């Protein structure tokens, strides 16, 4: 049976007004609407401009170090005793995570729009570092908003951003995490919209952000697909990626949506367990709502107030999720599961010891589910797990859990 998800169909996702089925859209105050419309128009032109695309892919090659390898994790595969586990090594990118693919792209957009100042929100600090990095390279002024709690638990990334010349603003309002950083970035943007480009770090926010961030991140899936064909002569059976906002996951999934045989698993943060209520798993345990410019699955209470979230990994600690994931969930094309803090920490230690690769705590959620899944599959089957970032930034958190002062 031919796929329902033909290229023509996927061209309409999102549609012209930024909707992924009933999700997405543009829910912002009027002051920002003209800028979003301008950005959309500019992006739609540049998307088809060979020079822009060439510049983007040249930067990905020479500055980021792409393509990132698709690595066969042989000892991990043996240990689990099931499907072959491949890791897409986004942790080897410049700045240590997939985030830089997107900031390279958006910084080029900022340059084309003639905006001298860029702002960003960050959770774990990876997107903040990736933004500060491209800002330094292009000589742009850069301010990064970060929840005050995250500033504490990711002190090393804060220092990296400062070294790169960025101003880091700790956000004290609300729950003092990623969602509050995003609120504050939007407040800054509304105030400085004339000279400022907002580099959103994930596939959330108002249209056209979920679309353009996805487009920049699909380099992950395009490479992985070709690499898998080269190494194995066929497509993988399953893809696994962690989902906070969901940019590394959509980047891996998107080029495979039309390949019906490839199953997709997005892994949310179950924190202390979905039943505890202390988690960050809107797709597994939330309902559709509107936050940060788009309609999507959200964690909110009975009165529509956004819930506090919990995850050991700051990068997954967000009550919403990119609208395209909400669409993929309702379509049944991707399955969303959740991994607890403890399971992620176990996977962190396992990968470190068995493969000599220290993963980010975010990516450790994907590793944990990838291992569970592989165990249930046959030895001739193939899984690609997106290793979205490296764990250096998490040394402090892990040491603290171990009761050690580094």
């Amino acid at each position: 049976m031919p796929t329902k998800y033909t290229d023509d169909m996927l061209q309409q996702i999102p549609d012209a007004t930024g909707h992924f089925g009933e999700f997405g859209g543009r829910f912002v105050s009027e002051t920002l609407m003209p800028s979003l419309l301008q950005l959309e128009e500019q992006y739609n032109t540049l998307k088809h401009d060979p020079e822009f695309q060439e510049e983007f892919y040249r930067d990905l090659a020479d500055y980021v170090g792409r393509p990132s390898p698709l690595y066969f994790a042989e000892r991990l595969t043996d240990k689990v005793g099931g499907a072959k586990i491949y890791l897409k090594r986004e942790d080897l990118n410049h700045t240590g995570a997939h985030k830089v693919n997107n900031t390279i792209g958006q910084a080029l957009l900022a340059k084309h729009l003639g905006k001298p100042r860029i702002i960003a929100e960050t959770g774990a600090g990876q997107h903040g570092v990736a933004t500060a990095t491209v800002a330094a390279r292009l000589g742009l002024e850069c301010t990064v908003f970060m929840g005050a709690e995250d500033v504490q638990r990711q002190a090393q990334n804060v220092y990296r951003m400062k070294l790169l010349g960025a101003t880091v603003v700790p956000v004290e309002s609300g729950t003092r995490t990623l969602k509050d950083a995003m609120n504050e970035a939007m407040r800054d943007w509304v105030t400085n919209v004339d000279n400022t480009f907002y580099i959103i770090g994930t596939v959330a926010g108002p249209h056209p952000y979920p679309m353009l961030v996805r487009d920049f991140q699909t380099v992950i899936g395009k490479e992985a697909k070709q690499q898998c064909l080269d190494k194995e002569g066929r497509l993988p059976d399953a893809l696994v990626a962690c989902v906070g906002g969901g940019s590394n996951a959509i980047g891996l999934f998107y080029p495979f949506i039309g390949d019906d045989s490839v199953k997709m698993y997005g892994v949310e943060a179950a924190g202390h367990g979905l039943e505890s209520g202390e988690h960050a798993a809107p797709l597994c345990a939330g309902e559709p709502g509107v936050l940060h410019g788009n309609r999507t699955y959200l964690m909110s209470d009975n009165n529509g107030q956004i819930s506090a979230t919990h995850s050991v990994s700051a990068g997954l600690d967000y009550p919403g999720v990119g609208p395209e994931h909400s669409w993929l969930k309702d379509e049944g094309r991707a399955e969303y599961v959740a991994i607890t803090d403890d399971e992620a920490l176990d996977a962190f230690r396992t990968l470190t010891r068995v493969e000599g690769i220290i993963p980010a705590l975010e990516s450790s959620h994907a590793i944990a589910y990838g291992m569970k899944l592989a165990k249930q599959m046959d030895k001739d089957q193939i899984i690609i797990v997106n290793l979205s970032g490296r764990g250096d930034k998490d040394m402090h958190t892990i040491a603290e859990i171990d009761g050690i002062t580094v």
Partner: protein
Amino acid sequence: MSRIKAVMSQLKSDGKSALIPYITGGDPVPGLTVELMHELVNAGADIIELGIPFSDPMADGPVIQLACERALEHNVSLDDILSMVSGFRETNTSTPVVLMGYLNPIVKMGYGLFASKAAGAGVDGVLVVDLPPEEGHQLLVEMRNNNLDSVYLIAPTTTDDRIKAICDASSGYVYYVSVKGVTGSASLDVASVAAKLAVIRNKSDIPVGVGFGIKDAESAAAVAKVADGVIVGSVLVNTIASNIDNHAAIKAKMYNIVSSMRQAMDA
């Protein structure tokens, strides 16, 4: 004719501008809101904007963020806000009340249920900050079915072709955000406001209220000369922040600010 239209057309024939104060419902405590609404009317308010508290008020500055936090400490819900309007209506059936807030609490209640409950409580209009007309159609249908006015925002950045569409979707009045920024941030520039209002009036007859950056009687009077309505929020909410436990002082200070604005505007 809606209460808002009636008030606006009466003021227009009197040659006056509407004074529209904003407070966040449930701030500092739920029990005080109805009293404060009456006090605002006594001081000279023509229309009251009542804020629905939200956990993530992205378009608001620190003053109104803190007001939301104070209200949410008491778990003030959208249903509670509607009850406050019902309470206000027990003794005031003439002053229009416009709810102002963010979309998610309304999504959670459901558009149809919200519109019918709001109409039943005596609400006259609704302004949803993060709902531009492009996304507002479904709610707009429910609002119209319940004879509620929809107030949309126009900003300094709004292009001419959008102005017409926004005015067409609005009823009662449109809310012109006079500065690029969040609530309570900067002072407005009356000359640039007047220039934008001329563009708006060229495209629509709908009354225009101006808000953001009106801090005192002088700026209220200056805006009243060019606008159909003067919207004032953060300076009033500040009186709550600095007198949390002294309700008499909140009422007295709010009364003084609003009545001095009224006098300056009508002078």
